[in-house]
């Protein structure tokens, strides 16, 4: 498919990837997010990109946009049915908390420290934790 390859002088290809290459929809969207201990936190419902200004002409040589955060929460119905949640209502996991990306996205922190897990903590504390045996290991 390299139908427009230009003949170059032998020099290191500036476009060779310097790190892991992945595609956002193929490798990130709808993947499981696990915390530091391997406990599931949520799914990657959407991704927030920093550094793209709508309608503004991009100057050659300007820095590339970066991945800012994983979005979850009200994002899922938006992806299914369309539309936008206002920025305040989005639940975001900052990308800098991500430790590795494989077939799952692994965070470097525990789930309890995240906004994204507040529903689980609420159900755990208010409902499940109150039923006898809820806090014990199964036997």
């Amino acid at each position, binding site marked *: *498919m*390299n*139908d*427009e390859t230009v003949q170059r002088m032998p020099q290191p290809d500036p*476009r060779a*990837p*310097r*790190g*892991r*290459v*992945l*595609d*956002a*929809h*193929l490798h*990130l*969207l709808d993947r499981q997010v696990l915390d530091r201990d391997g406990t599931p936190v949520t799914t990657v419902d*959407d*991704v*927030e*990109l920093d550094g*793209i*200004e*709508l*309608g*503004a*002409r*991009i100057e*050659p*040589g300007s820095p*590339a*946009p*970066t*991945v800012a955060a994983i*979005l979850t929460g009200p994002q899922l119905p*938006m*992806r299914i049915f369309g539309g*936008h949640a206002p920025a305040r209502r989005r639940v975001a996991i900052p*990308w*800098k*908390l*991500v*430790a*590795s*990306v*494989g*077939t799952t996205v692994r965070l*470097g922190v525990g789930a309890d420290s995240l906004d994204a897990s507040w529903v689980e903590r609420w159900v755990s504390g208010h409902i499940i934790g109150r039923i006898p045996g809820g806090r014990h290991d199964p036997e």
Partner: protein
Amino acid sequence: MILSDLLGSDALEADGRRVGAVVDVRLEISGAPAQLLAATEVTGVLVSPRSRFSTWGYERRGETAPVLIARLQRWLHRGMFLVGWDDVELVDEGRVVFRGGYERRDPMLPPSPRT
């Protein structure tokens, strides 16, 4: 900007001609070292001339099995190409415009390690 807004946008050349839809965004984990993982940058967009929907990756990776499904998928998404981010001039609602003389590159992904 949210990823799902970018996906499905029309991909336009500098003169306004539509060449397809943006079906994926290529990323590279190679930016400035950050806390746990190096910063992840956008290095390009993948354009499919024939469909707005993302694919199962058969045309970007070396997977060839199961045969019937791989062939069908490759045929459905034939002609997909990658455009480097430095060839992107403008991003607006529902459309992405490329610079004049942009290059259509091979969409193949380098083989990734299994983690």
